[in-house]
């Protein structure tokens, strides 16, 4: 795997960790079970090479962010 592809994958994996495994759970129809996360990783990794990399902005250090 090239370094560039690896770097693109970094932020997406971290995003998936957070959106699917984090966040507060309130009552509701959660469409994704935590148990499916590993399957989601596999599916997403197959897609990563075709994604325009909005995720690049999350690679630290990112200066001047409001967050």
């Amino acid at each position, binding site marked *: 795997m090239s370094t560039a592809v690896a770097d693109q994958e970094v932020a997406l994996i971290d995003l998936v960790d957070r959106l*699917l495994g*984090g*966040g*507060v759970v*309130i009552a509701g129809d*959660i469409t*994704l079970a935590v148990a499916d996360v590993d399957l989601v990783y596999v599916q*997403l990794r197959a897609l990563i090479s075709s994604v325009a990399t909005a995720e690049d902005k999350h690679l630290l250090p990112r200066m001047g962010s*409001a967050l």
Partner: protein
Amino acid sequence: MIEVYAIADHPGPPLPDVNGVRAVPAGRIAALCADVEETALSPAALWAHEAVVEALMEDRDLLPVRYGTRLADEAQVLRAVAERHDALLAALDGVRGAAEVSLRVVAPTDGPAPAEAAARVHEQLAGQARAATVLDAGESRDLLRAAYLVDRGGSAGFAEAVATHQRAHPDLRLLCTGPWPPYSFAER
């Protein structure tokens, strides 16, 4: 369907014009949500969700809600938030003024995995953060997946600390991203 993005104070600053997000208030908090269509799971869908949460976080504290939290109507949203009002408010208090930084430590492809070194890096970084938590690494080869709660605006300084550890441990790969909304510190 209504997607709930986050829990925030009510009343709060005016909402940004993003994806038609509106507030459903319940006491001192509100669910920030929007009407959504069924969407297939994809990187683009996840980033679009993230963009809404980050836009909301620009001028308010918030608790991000688990992705995929969808309810039929506003009455259900109101009920869900009202039932846990005090716990949600306490959790919101816990992340005020903070953002999350992610760290993954990846093992070298050959040779012994320096798990102890990764644990020491985590211990030292945790000492610099408001809070820290270790995430499940699943079936990956990651030696560590962790999240650190840092002051807003403090993520660049935290990343410098990570870079220092990277230089001290050339046998490890330290992958640091952020700042993120405090997903890993929302459920306390």
